[in-house]
């Protein structure tokens, strides 16, 4: 019975869709934070169940992805004093169509991939993970703002976490903590970088960086 896992994965895919069409930076930041929290809760309902190790890890991920990351990012947006819109390269209509296409691809691929997925994981985890990775990639290439690129990177990380959950039943605690630290440092560095970019150039449109003279 994978009732709760299935529902969490469905919510995860809905957040992916919502990310492709929401136009406000603040909404995007809270959506990504929510996605991270949902994923952190996933191991609690899987085969391992409740034990001190999973509880500790879930609590840590909730704090880092649910509180610290959105805090850092929204602070960067506020301090950088930019327009609070996403400014995508594509229109929102196209973005939704791309979101639908990515969803289709992730299901098509996720079901056919010959992965050593354990019997105990729900069949939705692999499509959901691939969907999140693809959506993150799409957000990375299709948005103008530096903040949305951080968000795309975080969505990709969420997808990989879900993927790991499906394929490797038990990741050692040390490695999980290491990954979390890496992501944390990554977001921290990028938040600082966003602040520097906006202080230097009065905006944070990354496509304008390519015209800089060295």
């Amino acid at each position, binding site marked *: 019975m994978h009732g709760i896992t299935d529902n969490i994965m469905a919510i995860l895919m809905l957040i992916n869709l919502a990310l492709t069409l929401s136009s406000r930076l603040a909404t995007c930041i809270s959506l990504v934070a929510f996605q991270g929290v949902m994923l952190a809760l996933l191991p609690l309902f899987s085969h391992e169940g409740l034990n001190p190790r999973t509880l500790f890890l879930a609590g840590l991920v909730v704090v880092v992805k649910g509180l610290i990351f959105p805090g850092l990012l929204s602070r960067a947006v506020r301090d950088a004093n930019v327009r609070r819109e996403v400014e995508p390269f594509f229109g929102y209509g196209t973005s939704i169509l791309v979101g*639908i296409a990515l969803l*289709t691809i992730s299901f098509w691929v996720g079901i056919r991939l010959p992965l050593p997925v354990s019997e105990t994981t729900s069949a939705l985890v692999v499509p959901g993970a691939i969907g999140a990775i693809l959506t993150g990639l799409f957000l990375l290439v299709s948005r103008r703002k530096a903040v949305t690129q951080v968000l795309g990177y975080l969505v990709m990380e969420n997808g990989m976490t879900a993927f790991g959950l499906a394929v490797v039943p038990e990741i050692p605690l040390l490695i999980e903590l290491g990954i979390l630290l890496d992501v944390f440092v990554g977001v921290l560095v990028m938040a600082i970088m966003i602040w520097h970019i906006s202080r230097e150039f009065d905006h944070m449109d990354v496509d304008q960086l390519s015209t800089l003279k060295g």
Partner: protein
Amino acid sequence: MTWDSLCAYVLALVVAPLLTGIINRVKAMFAGRHGQPLLQAYFDLAKLLRKGAVYSGTTTWVFRTGPVAGLAAVLVALAFVPLGKVPALVSFNGDFLLVAYLFGVMRFVTVMAALDTGSSFEGMGASREVQFSALAEPAWFMGLVTVIYVSGEWSLSPALAGVSSGVWGPAGSAMVLVGLAWLGVFLTENSRIPVDDPNTHLELTMIHEVMVLDHGGPDFAFILYGAILKLWTLGAFLVSLVTPYRTGMVLLDLGYGLAGMLILAMVVGIIESIMARLRLVRVPHLLLTATAFALLALFLVMR
């Protein structure tokens, strides 16, 4: 054909105008007004039917056919749609296609009648109506395919009856998504608020209303009644989706369905009170999102 299906059909014909009264009453309560009488739609219909019709010299028989053919189409469509878990009057394999295109016929004759007047406003409304309904169709069909896949039936009544409490357990998230997608289609097709404001009286902003500006008297009564029955028919899809099971007692089943329709009317009233209308360019986004929901639901049940 059974007696309770016939009762459900007659019930729909009699009670449907009440839904608009309930929607208006809920909106009035939110605004702190007393609002129109609950039976206002009946009074309007009675008043219009007593009047005579005026036809412009530039219109042809197309203009006069529109209202009658539209009402006829929706009356036939109503016979195929179950109310709650009470089966429909008629059903055969694949009847959902017929229902979808009966609504298509209704739209077509309304649009033709609007274009026949030669008014540029009506042409604009017709263009919007056709654009939005073309985008609403995939969402509606994807949801229907999901329901058909879950229940394994190829006809509307058994398919929607198959979505019982047993299905809501394992495929609950998919059914919620179908419900949301259909709610989007329901609001679009009936020109309710996030898409069109039924209270607006500025031709530039209207969609459905603007197409029927030139109809008067009994013709307008037919159009009004047709729109009300369309509201009921599309609402019956949603209500049938969420009704848990059939009790077997005629009165109780009909009561279930009726209560569902009244609650749906209240939900529409609440949505209209707390939401602003979308800009016209945002409406396709809403419908694409509804399609995405329905597609996700289909993937969730098909995996």
